[in-house]
């Protein structure tokens, strides 16, 4: 079945990119509308796409994190389902408490749209069969992407191998160069850059395609 739920909020704008990415990997994407709850058992995995949900009102991702679909996503997490948040999706997962940390305004105060090289620090058990130390090239495009976590929180991340990806040249001032993290269980991951914008050679790189695979769990 390979049904993968793709969450859509008012202001999500990378939903079709995610749909295409999943199709290229032979998955069966399905839309999930933010106003509706759903039963997590009907899906193998979930992706929360990028965009500007609720126009970034209050804080990026804060209002989307309070929507009915997110309640169901928390149930999916309890079942250990693979969940992947990209850009605004990462912000939403942090605000919902599914991932540690917060994404704040870039250190330079500007929206940054550029190619970045990302190093895989730790393997995520649920998402993408990538290799440790491997470098992936893809675009980033955000204003609120500076990963922040307290010093104690950072120690915790290091101790539990929860740092997933780091920037080779930290463009936004993220703590410890962090571009992506995972939860303690390793089924929820989030990253600021866009693997969905690096799928074919004509896009500049196809490194992003590697990110759309996961290990399904029985539940």
């Amino acid at each position, binding site marked *: 079945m390979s049904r993968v739920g793709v969450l859509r909020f008012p202001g999500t704008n990378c939903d079709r990119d995610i749909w295409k990415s999943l199709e290229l990997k032979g998955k069966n994407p399905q839309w999930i509308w933010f106003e509706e709850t759903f039963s997590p058992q009907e899906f193998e995995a979930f992706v929360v796409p990028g965009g500007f949900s609720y126009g970034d009102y*209050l*804080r990026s991702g*804060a*209002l989307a*994190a*309070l929507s009915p679909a997110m309640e169901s996503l928390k149930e999916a997490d309890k079942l250990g389902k693979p969940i992947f948040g990209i850009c605004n999706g990462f912000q939403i997962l942090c*605000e919902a408490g599914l991932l540690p*940390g*917060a994404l*704040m*305004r*870039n*250190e*330079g*105060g500007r929206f940054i749209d550029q190619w970045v090289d990302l190093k895989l620090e730790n393997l995520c058990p649920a998402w993408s069969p990538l290799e440790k130390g491997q470098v992936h090239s893809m675009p980033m495009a955000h204003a609120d992407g*500076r990963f*922040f*976590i*307290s010093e104690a*929180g950072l120690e915790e991340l290091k101790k539990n191998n929860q740092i997933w990806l780091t920037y080779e040249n930290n463009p936004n*001032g993220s703590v410890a160069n962090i571009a992506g993290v995972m939860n303690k269980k390793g089924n929820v991951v989030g990253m600021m850059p866009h693997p969905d914008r690096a799928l074919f050679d004509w896009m500049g790189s196809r490194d992003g395609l590697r990110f759309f695979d996961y290990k399904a769990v029985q539940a």
Partner: protein
Amino acid sequence: MKFAIKVLPKPEVLDTQGRTVAETFTRHGFDVKSCQVGRYIVLDVEGQNPEEARANATAMIKKGLYNPLIENFEMEEIK
């Protein structure tokens, strides 16, 4: 009952908005040591009694009006 809630970035967190405001006014000749920019939220909340209204407002703050990792808040009752 109405409550006013001040939300400010924690002092140890880099507040890019506050920094930009401070830098801009410094350029205009003002002696600004530092600046923090936050939010001021006014809530009108129902409750059987003042305690319950206050509890409702506090619950809303904790549910998402502020992010405890990066922000502090203060709440006061207003007319």
